[in-house]
């Protein structure tokens, strides 16, 4: 028999409803990892304005000459979207850390039977911490 049938990738993401806890943990961990890498580059891009700031470069804000570094940060922090992204960043980082601890335990052979529970716990904790952070992140923002 020379022919056979390969069902290909449809088996993987087309079946997301059938994924189990460990699988979701894996996907979320990869996803948040890539998000954090993306954030780091953005972070460095923003920080690079500090070089100009340190050299005394200025920019005009409301007809006033302001240190360019301070102005960049204040401008970003004034945006609702940026504040929202910060809440998101916290959620992403917290989940990645908690799941990272979970993976560390798994590597050490601790609590293997509770791997799904520890994943749910990471999710719940992430949610709680994120919600609790909202007032702090969103104070004084002009929409």
């Amino acid at each position, binding site marked *: 028999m020379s*022919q056979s*049938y390969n069902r290909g990738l449809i*088996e993987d993401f087309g079946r997301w409803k*059938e994924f189990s*806890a*460990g699988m979701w943990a*894996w996907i979320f961990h990869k996803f948040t990892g890539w998000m954090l890498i993306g954030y780091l580059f953005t972070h460095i891009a923003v920080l690079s304005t500090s070089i100009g700031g340190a050299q005394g470069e200025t920019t005009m804000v409301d007809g006033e000459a302001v240190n360019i570094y301070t102005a960049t940060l204040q401008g970003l922090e004034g945006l609702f979207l940026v504040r929202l992204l910060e809440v998101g960043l916290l959620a992403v980082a917290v989940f990645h850390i908690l799941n990272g601890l979970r993976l560390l335990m*798994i590597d050490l052979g601790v609590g293997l039977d509770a791997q799904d529970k520890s994943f749910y716990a990471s999710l719940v904790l992430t949610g709680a911490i994120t919600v609790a952070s909202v007032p702090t992140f969103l104070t004084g923002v002009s929409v």
Partner: protein
Amino acid sequence: MSTQQAEPESQEAPKDPEMQGAESPAAEKQKGGGMVDQTSTDASELEGETVHIKVFRYDPEVEAKQEPRFDDFHVPFEKGMTVLDAVMYARDEYDSSLTFRHSCRQAVCGSDAFFVNGKQRLGCKTQIADLEQPVRIEPLPHQEVVKDLVVDMDHFYDQMHTVEPYFQQEDLPDGELEEQRQSRENREKVKMSTRCIWCGACMSSCNIAAGDNEYLGPAAINKAYRFAMDEREDEEIKEHRLRILEQEHGVWRCQTQFSCTEVCPKDIPLTEHIQELKREAVKKNLKFW
């Protein structure tokens, strides 16, 4: 190309009263057998009814079946009916071309692993009464389909053989005692890992194995664990085993998704074994000068 064809060729079973009549005495007998009635609620609901199964069909040699599709069968339910019983009934009574593998019918031979309702399971171990209807029965994912529910297992066997799945010991014990005795503790340690029946369910559930054809996969690693942890083998051969396991496509590929552990019909803690071998590999390579 989607396998989830919306229009399966329906092969409704005529509700043959005679046939059902023939079924019930057997069901009665089972009931009288003093079996503990575990699935009572579900099973009694199904009593006297038919079970709707959707079976994946594909046959490269028949023109009409080259395009995969699902066929529907309505099988008269019998108490204690397993998925394997249902497909066997469908084959015997409705369509003799329906192809699948099975042998022992008691979760020992490992030949009837199917993808049932989105999960790798042994057909003979899975009670129909525990499943949501219609019961979708497909061949194992990530393995090429040869015909209907039969997948090509060659690659799986190749991986199993890579880890040299046999006992290797040069020196036999001296004296009269010729058995190679194992301590109780050591037996306990490898106990679970010896239960593997080579069904391939774990390998089929592993996304990493799906993406990396060279990855040894959970079953082979578990097999290696069974021997690497056996104290009767020499240190030397244990090192040799660890060398096989710690190569690029060995234990380090495992990303602890636990899919294999979840589907293993023999409840082998596969992920746990893989993690333990990772630690062994680290220990072997750690040197403090």
